[in-house]
């Protein structure tokens, strides 16, 4: 038997021991994390970041609980800020969040603000979806609207909403089933049983 054999045995033993200790510590940490009592939700929590090396959708950046979308020239097009978590799913290329504010910048022809309880950005479909009662207002005048469900399409930059539309401008209020806000054309279209009257 070679005199090196005991050294090899000792080395193997040490490696096995170190591995066991590492796995034990890791398991303990995982258990500790799972049992952690959640604190009060922070006003602005950190978003789940894509894994290092994982490509983010073109033009998108996640920072804190905020998504920014920039055009190829780097100009800011819109932002989504969450008062809760924003979570990025790298597999489905989606970002989901709650209690969000969507803001179209001045780069848009008709800048507006949206507030929505439920938000989802689908970067494969290139749409943002706002749900469960969306309120919006144009930042360049007094127009405002409410709608149950709203979709923003990247390519057209249009906001297309459906269900329980209420659109107000100045002293007037219009109700309808559907709404399309077209910033490029600087027009708002309501359709489906439109009713327009002066507010009382």
């Amino acid at each position: 038997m070679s005199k090196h054999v005991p050294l090899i045995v000792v080395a193997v033993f040490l490696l096995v021991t170190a591995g066991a200790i590492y796995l034990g510590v890791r398991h303990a940490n995982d258990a500790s994390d799972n049992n952690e009592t959640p604190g009060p939700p922070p006003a602005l929590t950190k978003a789940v970041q894509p894994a290092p090396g994982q490509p983010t959708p073109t033009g998108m950046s996640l920072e804190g609980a905020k998504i920014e979308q920039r055009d190829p020239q780097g100009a800011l097009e819109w932002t989504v800020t969450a008062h809760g978590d924003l979570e990025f799913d790298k597999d489905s290329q989606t970002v989901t969040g709650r209690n969000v504010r969507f803001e179209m910048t001045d780069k848009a022809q008709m800048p507006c603000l949206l507030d929505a309880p439920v938000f989802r950005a689908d970067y494969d479909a290139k749409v943002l979806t706002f749900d469960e009662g969306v309120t919006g207002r144009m930042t360049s005048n007094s127009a405002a609207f409410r709608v149950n469900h709203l979709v923003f399409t990247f390519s057209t930059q249009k906001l297309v909403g459906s269900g329980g539309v209420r659109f107000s401008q100045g002293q007037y209020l219009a109700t309808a089933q559907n709404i399309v806000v077209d910033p490029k054309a600087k027009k708002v279209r309501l359709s489906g049983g439109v009713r327009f009257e002066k507010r009382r």
Partner: protein
Amino acid sequence: MKSKLLVAALVSLLLVVAAVAQQVKKAQNAVITAQTMDYDWVNNTLDFTGNAKVVLTGPYDATMTAPSLAVKLSPQADRVLSFVGAGPVNFTLTTKPDANGLRRRIVATAKEQATYTDDTQIIKLIGGATADLLPVATTADNAPAGEGLAKAQAVHFTGQTITANLKTNKLTVDDANLTVETKAQ
């Protein structure tokens, strides 16, 4: 005799328009319904299409229907500056009771368009315009009183354009044709 009838007819028409004008000054609620509404951000205009209908309620009741209706709002969007109904436009209005307790229904149409401007308070029915003034109550006890058109059961106007100026209480019919129906004694 003919000139007397013409004067009486004009006086009667002025009374009807005056009655409408008086009612316009009071609060009036307007509801517009349509299939679609396009709001133009730049010009502050509204385009209603698909069975556009305006219903006015309040001191008097009026209804206007048209395939499409364009409305111009004030910059503050607190009042309607003008509207244009694209033809064929149908317009009905029921006046308040006059001094004799008679209410009249005005039924008007225009093949091309109807316009209203708030500053001038002028309503124009353009292109093959017609207007009928009909007493709402048709019983013998409530027969129209007075002379000329005031006594008429029904008056039918046709013309290229019918203009009602609610400020000056004038009704103008261009290229006019007038038919008066009176009840035989």
